[in-house]
């Protein structure tokens, strides 16, 4: 009985004290020892737009040596492969497989360790002729695309095709006084707006609608407060992660420029304290 009654009473007392407090802060009679109240902080939302890697990473020298060693172990310890199930006896496909397998054995164990041949030279010649024939038939003009894009060589920071092995992030150049600063696209929240809605609205207002993007979650992934100045209210920036699927950024005024850069390249462009605030939100991959 006492618990349900206690809550409204406490709230009422709280309201009374609040109304008294506002009355006390009225400009006519400031209290003698009122603490210095800083103005309301300004909330910003910022979108970290990410282009995920489009190529697999190149293995390091150590990784390649490790994989080569493991491939040899695997070849030595694997269970027997039922080739008679997969290939008909005497078929062209079987000859093809046997030739490839011999080549792989030579790579793994060297020419000395290759399996002994139990085929007659005539049969071998016939196999080889068949293989050559299939090779002629299967020849295609497809060529592997280079892992280095022309935009890498041209240092085209606007291109989404650069640095295919890395995560790229969008930085925009915002005029600030006489000069300009590089940062993630940022906008101010409006009254009564939720953070993730503000992030979506501001981002498209600044970077255009000519791209297909997805903001990953409604929760911010990080927060940044620049060193406070005495005169101005505090700035608080909440960051949201987003992916770009298609299209390209078209920066709207007053933004001057944009770049697609990796984590390491961001460090060179942004201010030191901004870098300290955002570096842990960015991927090392």
């Amino acid at each position, binding site marked *: 009985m006492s618990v349900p009654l206690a809550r409204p009473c406490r709230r009422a007392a709280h309201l009374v004290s609040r109304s008294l407090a506002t009355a006390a802060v009225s400009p006519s009679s400031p209290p003698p020892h009122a603490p210095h109240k800083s103005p309301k902080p300004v909330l910003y939302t910022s979108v970290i737009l990410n282009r*995920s*890697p489009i190529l*697999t*990473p*190149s*293995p*390091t*020298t150590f*990784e*390649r*040596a490790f*994989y*080569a*060693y*493991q*491939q040899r*172990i*695997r070849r030595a*310890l*694997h*269970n027997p492969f*039922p080739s008679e*199930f*997969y290939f008909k006896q005497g078929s062209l496909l079987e000859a093809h497989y046997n030739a490839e397998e011999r080549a792989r054995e030579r*790579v*793994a164990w*060297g020419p000395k360790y290759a399996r002994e041949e139990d085929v007659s030279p005539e049969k071998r010649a016939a196999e080889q002729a068949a293989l050559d024939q299939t090779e002629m038939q299967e020849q295609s003009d497809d060529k592997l695309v280079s892992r280095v894009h022309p935009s890498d060589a041209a240092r085209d920071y606007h291109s989404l095709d650069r640095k295919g*092995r*890395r*995560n790229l992030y969008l930085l925009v150049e915002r005029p600030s006084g006489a000069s300009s600063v590089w940062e993630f696209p940022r906008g101010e929240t409006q009254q009564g707006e939720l953070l993730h809605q503000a992030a979506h609205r501001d981002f498209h207002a600044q970077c255009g609608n000519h791209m297909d993007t997805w903001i*990953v*979650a409604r*929760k911010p*992934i990080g927060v940044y407060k620049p060193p406070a100045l005495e005169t101005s209210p505090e700035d608080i920036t909440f960051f949201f*992660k987003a*992916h770009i699927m298609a299209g390209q950024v078209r920066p709207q005024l007053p933004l001057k420029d944009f770049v697609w850069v*990796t984590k*390491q390249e961001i460090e060179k462009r942004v201010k030191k304290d901004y870098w300290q605030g955002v570096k842990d939100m960015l*991927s*090392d*991959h």
Partner: protein
Amino acid sequence: MPHTPQRVARSLTRFGRPPPVKKPLHRNWRTRLPIPHVPILGREFAPCRLETHYHATLAEDTMYMTYIHEAGPRPPPRQIRLTYDPSNPYARFRANPPVGGDQLGKKPPPPDSPSNVIRLEKIVIHSFLKTAIVSRSNLLGLIMALRALTGETEKGAGKHAVKGVEVVYGKKSVGGWIRPDIPVGAKVELRGAPMYDFLAQLVEFVLPRLKDFPGILLPPPAASDHSPSAVSGVVSIGLTPTAMQFFPGIEVNLDAYPRSYGMHIHFVTNATGVGAENRARALMSGFQLPFTRR
């Protein structure tokens, strides 16, 4: 990490001469094969594309999507009286659940931490074959199909935990249908690189070629959040026999199999607690597994 181009002077695939054997190796008494000094174990032998994708993109995204903020440590769980008096010597070493059961479906997920970011632990494929009850030799085609699909063999590459394709036996007697200890199906557990390879085949070759497949159906909104399947972090799908022919490993010699086999596929993640299945779906959706509402 940045990869600087490195000049490699020596071949990485060839190794020097093995050291001379000074003392003969012990031999297995049964097989008479030499036992090496060190356990030789096959590990990853090639970079794995989907695993890289998980670490580069998915782990981060699913962490942001499924993160639940908690202010401070959780209060200790409420102590619930046990069913039987624990001081009674009769109940001492017997099962003694709390009153009202262990409430498995209502356990909250563990607090989010870097170590329990959702990840795919294993994929289990299993298939029940009705005709195997009549003749166990009917299982051979299924076993070969599963082996061709997954590439798993028992203790392959020296890995003793890898069981390969296992035969599933009946457990109980159901009149006119099944008897205990008769082989009725086959299953495979996939972990690591073979798991990601199978997943890539499924989402890139098979699912896009299925007719009238809008995606995996999500349960209706009224479905319980506390059912055992909803709190276990497993996404399960079934494939019809027609889907088997689209796997590239089967497609090359489809006529070698006596018939097509359907299969159940379970994607087992490390998510537990309330909402675990939804978190598992978020992860699997990142691997391009399509989900849809009825």
